[in-house]
Each structure stands twice: as C-alpha cells, then as structure tokens.
C-alpha cells in the first residue's frame, strides 16, 4: 500500500550512448551523436523569420575585411533614429541590431561596430560563447578563477580562447543531462538576490527546483548587467531586488554610470535585455511558467516528446508554445500578444518623445548657461527617464513578459522626462523614484501610499534613491 508511488527507474534511459561525452566535451556535434533530435533543432537557430516585434530579418550585406558576415539582422537605429539621440556618446549609438538566433551570438558580438568604436573587455564573452571549458582551462580547473582572468583580458585576446556559441555543455550535465548553471555571473547574481530575500549562501545548482532551472539556464544571459570596477567583473545588479526601481536604487548607491551623455553631460545608464527581470514581474512567472515552456516547448518527434531546441519566438510556434495551456485558436492567441505589444509600443513611443524633448531642452539650457542646480536636477531626471525607458526598449518581448509592469515603467519614465523639462523652467521639486513595492495601503490615500505625497510635485517614495546619483 505504502509504495504505490514508486517509479520504474529503468524507464528513464531513452537514448543509447553512441559516444562517451564528459565534462571535457565541448563540440555540440559530438553530443549530437547521442541526442540527434535535440542537435538538429539546435542547429535550426540559424533561421531568421520576422514577427511584428520580434524574430529577425535576414538582410544581405557584402562581406569585407573587417566584417565577413554576408547576412545581418535589421538595424534598430535605422528603424528609430531617436535611439541615436538617447544613446549619444555611447557605443550603442554606433550599431544596434535586432537580435537573432543563438547560432549567431559569437559572430554578431565579434563584428558589431560597438567593438570598433570602443575597446571591449573579455567579460563580453560570458554570454556569447561556450565559455565553460575556456574558463576552467584558464583557471586551471577553477571556473571562477578563469572567469576573473578572462574579464580582464582585451576582447580580441579572449576571443581566441573560445570556439562555439552557447553549446550543450553550457546548460547540461554530461552525465545525467540534467540542467545546470555554468555562468559565474548568474551563480553570484542569484546568490545576492536570494540573500537580499533572506536566503543565505544559495547554491543554484543544488538548491533550485527543476522547474526553476528551466528559467535559470536562460537567466544566465538574458539579464541586465554591468562591469564592476577596474577588474571589469560581470555583475548582475540584483542587490536590492529585480524591479527596475530597485536596480536603479542600487546603481545610484554605487554611484555607477555607463557613460556620460554626449549632448547633455548626464551620468547615463544603459539597460540591456532584462528578460529574466521582467518575466519575474509577470503573471507567467507567478504561475510557474518558465522560459523553456514557451521558447523550448515540448514537441513530438516520432514516438517521443522532446524539448524543442530550436529556441525562438513563440509567435512562430503558437500551437506548441501556448495552446496546451490556452485552448484558444492560434489567431486569437496571436491577437492577444499583439494587443499587449501594441499598447506597450505606443507608450514606448510616447516616452521616447518625452526623453528626446528633455535632451533637446538640456542642450539648449547648457548653451544658455542656465543655473547649474537646474541643469543638475534635469540631468538626474534624464538618467532616470532614460533607464526606465531603456529597460522596456531593451527588453525583447515588447511588454509581453509583464504587460502591466512594462507600461507602469514607461508611465514613470514619461513623468521623469517631463519633470526634467520643468526643472529647466525653474519648477522646484525633488527627483524621486516611484516604487510599487511600497507597503500596501492600509486605506486609500494617505501620503505614504504609493509613495506619493498629495499636492507635491513628485514626493519622496519608500525605497527611493538617495540624492546621490553617481557619475
């Protein structure tokens, strides 16, 4: 009676080990001998198909000395020139393209113009190549040591040490094929986050559930990051939490800036692909739905169900990605995605206009030598407006991963930008970071609630960043 739930273990060996693979086997082609189905799908990430806001377009180009690529993805800078104003003085203003499949990650990083306009560190490699073995070799068996060494190399030198884009070994334990996290950035990042939540020395590979791992393996790279200190240590800014407000508060406290804005001198921050952070704010994460559920849905191959290793936009695969959980017609599900994305896109455009307007005003004000105090406050508002807007602009689901939160962030960005313009026109007030992680209102409106004091322009918010804004 007791052991009616016992499992038949012998059922758990679906494949023949054609070749032996171990922790030294980097080449996915070799792993592919044991797992031909997954390998075939993995190779499909070279496909380029465009969706309304995602996928990517295959644009032919004539290869040259500097850049041998004969096909690239469309340039986001050409699609929206306002981005150049937003990032003036930063490498992204030189080249920023729609991202495409995993197969391209290494070459796209190697040949982006961002490499030309700026000397990049070896740190970059962390998320664009199979660095598990290279790190270990470099660190004589010690992953962390190798990580630290490579961070401090110039990019071109580090580049020589890697061969493959993300490969099987980066997500799988070769013995059991169980998922594993191999990226120091995430191992440290998630430990910091859990610590902030009261869980001491969290070890992701032994303490995370299987379902969590189905998101964590992606969180290794699809996250906001920065290079800390002269060691250029890759750091995920999760010390206070994953919300944009908490991340900005951390950067402010650190006094960190990515660059100084060329036209305004503002100490600016660049947000980058915070998919993991935004997903965490959404209803799917809350419901235990992981990245792999939608981007690597189970798919039937012959008599087996396997995880679709053709990682791509779910919009191109709605029946497997969505319809098991949502019994709606494919057209309806596509329409739901687009409704969410169109709303987000419209607000993203509104926020972009507001930010560009502030930047223009600041330029003029500096030429007209406006009061330094006004300039300083406007610059801080630009820093905030820019980071909030960029957090959604850089996030790649155009709001889908957390629809209400995305628009909430854009609303705040608009308010910051407009307050910046006002500051230049002599309107007093305190820059604040509005946060929705504020303690729940006991009752409807009290000054504390939502962190906004009635009548005042802005108003100090719980969890707001201290005056210091870095740079």
């Amino acid at each position, binding site marked *: *009676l007791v052991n*009616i*739930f016992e*499992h*038949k273990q012998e*059922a*758990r060996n*679906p*494949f023949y080990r054609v070749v032996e693979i171990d922790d030294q086997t980097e080449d996915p082609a070799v792993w592919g001998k044991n797992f031909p189905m997954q390998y075939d799908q993995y190779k499909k990430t070279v496909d380029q198909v465009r969706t309304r806001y995602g996928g990517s377009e295959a644009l032919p180009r004539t290869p040259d000395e500097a850049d041998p690529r004969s096909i690239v993805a469309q340039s986001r800078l050409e699609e929206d020139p306002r981005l150049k104003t937003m990032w003036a003085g930063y490498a992204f203003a030189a080249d920023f393209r729609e991202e495409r499949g995993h197969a391209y990650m290494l070459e796209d990083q190697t040949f982006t113009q961002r490499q030309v306009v700026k000397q990049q560190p070896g740190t970059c490699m962390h998320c664009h190549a199979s660095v598990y073995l290279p790190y270990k070799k470099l660190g004589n068996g010690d992953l962390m040591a190798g990580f630290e060494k490579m961070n401090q190399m110039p990019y071109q030198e580090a580049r020589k040490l890697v061969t493959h884009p993300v490969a099987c070994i980066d997500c799988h334990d070769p013995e*059991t*094929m*169980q998922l594993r996290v191999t990226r120091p950035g995430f191992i440290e990042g998630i430990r910091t986050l859990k610590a902030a939540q009261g869980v001491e020395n969290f070890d992701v590979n032994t303490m995370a*559930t*299987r379902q969590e791992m189905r998101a964590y393996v992606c969180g290794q790279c699809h996250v906001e990051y920065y290079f800390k200190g002269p060691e250029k240590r890759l750091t995920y800014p999760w010390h206070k939490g994953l919300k944009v407000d908490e991340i900005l508060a951390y950067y402010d406290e650190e006094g960190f800036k990515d660059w100084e804005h060329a036209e305004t001198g503002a100490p600016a921050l660049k947000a980058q692909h915070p998919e993991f952070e935004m997903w965490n704010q959404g209803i799917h994460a809350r419901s*235990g739905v992981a990245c792999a*559920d939608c981007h690597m849905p*189970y798919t*039937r191959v012959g*008599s*087996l*169900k*396997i*995880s679709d290793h053709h990682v791509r936009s779910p919009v191109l695969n709605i029946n497997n990605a969505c319809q*098991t*959980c949502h*019994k709606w017609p494919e057209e309806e599900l596509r329409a739901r995605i687009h409704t969410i994305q169109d709303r987000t896109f419209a607000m993203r455009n509104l926020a972009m206009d507001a930010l560009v307007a502030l930047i223009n005003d600041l330029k003029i004000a500096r030429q007209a030598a406006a009061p330094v105090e006004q300039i300083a406050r406007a610059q801080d508002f630009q820093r905030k407006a820019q980071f909030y807007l960029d957090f959604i602009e850089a996030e790649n689901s155009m709001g889908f991963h957390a629809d209400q939160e995305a628009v909430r962030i854009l609303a705040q960005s608009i308010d910051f930008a407009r307050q910046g313009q006002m500051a230049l026109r002599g309107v007093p007030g305190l820059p604040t970071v509005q946060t929705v992680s504020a303690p729940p209102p006991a009752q409807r409106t009290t000054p504390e609630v939502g962190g906004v004091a009635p009548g005042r322009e802005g108003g100090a918010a719980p969890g707001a960043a201290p005056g210091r804004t870095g740079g």
Partner: protein
Amino acid sequence: MDAANGMRGSTLIAIILGLLLGLAAGIGGYTFLYAKGASYLTNDPAACANCHVMQSQYDQWLVSSHRSVAVCNDCHTPPGFIPKYFTKALNGFNHSYAFTTGWFHEPIQINERNRQVTEQACRKCHENIVQAIEGPHRPGQELSCIRCHSTVGHF
C-alpha cells in the same frame, strides 16, 4: 466549511481507517450504500455521477479527448488491485462523508494524494512517449503532467 477542512486531517483518516474495517457501519457507511457508494467499486463513470457534485466532471469528460480511452478510475486510481481498492475505499469514504455533511471546499479541489495518483496514471499509458523528457532527477522533482495538461480528462 472551515471546520470540515480541519476535520479532514490525519486524525479523520485514522478514524476512517478504523471504520473501514467494519465498513457498512456509521454515517459514511450508510451514505455509501444509499448514494450508490458501490459506484466506487465499478468502473462506470456514470456511477461517479451518481453524485451530482461529480456531474460537471462527468459532463466534461464526455467531451474530453479521453472519453473513449480512459474512464474516471483510469486516472483516479493507482494500478494494482489492492492499491486501487484501498484508494477507492478511502475516497469513497471521504467523499460520502463530505457529501453527507456537505462539508467540503468549493470548488472541489483534488487533494495531494489523489493528484499523485493521477500523475502516475498518466505515465501508465504514456510512459513511452514521455520517457525522453522524464529524465533523471532529484527526488520530488518529477515532471508534472497536470501543469500543462490539466484539462485532458475534463476542465
């Protein structure tokens, strides 16, 4: 209702087990017979629907992808004679008890033990197709079929 939730604790199970030995006795026993509790001993889904509170599941099962391939018991009782009838008896008593007293959470929710039974039931029939994804894993980390396929038997 809260009281009931409390009562359906381990102590209750213990009492029930006791009662089960000399079945037929006690309130639950009475209902068990009255409400065609024998339904629990057959495989006829219609029998489950003897209790109108099972009606919606029954109606939905009739239009589910499994109507022609799996009856209630295929998914709600474990394989093997003894485990099957132990489960039937336990549930039969639980449900009769709940039905009689009217003490149960609404909407009805599958309890942890029966969820496990159902999870295993899926494997009974689909072991082969899912063997690749089951994979080896730490204890308690089994893949949950229901997470994605909760509506295969009924909504």
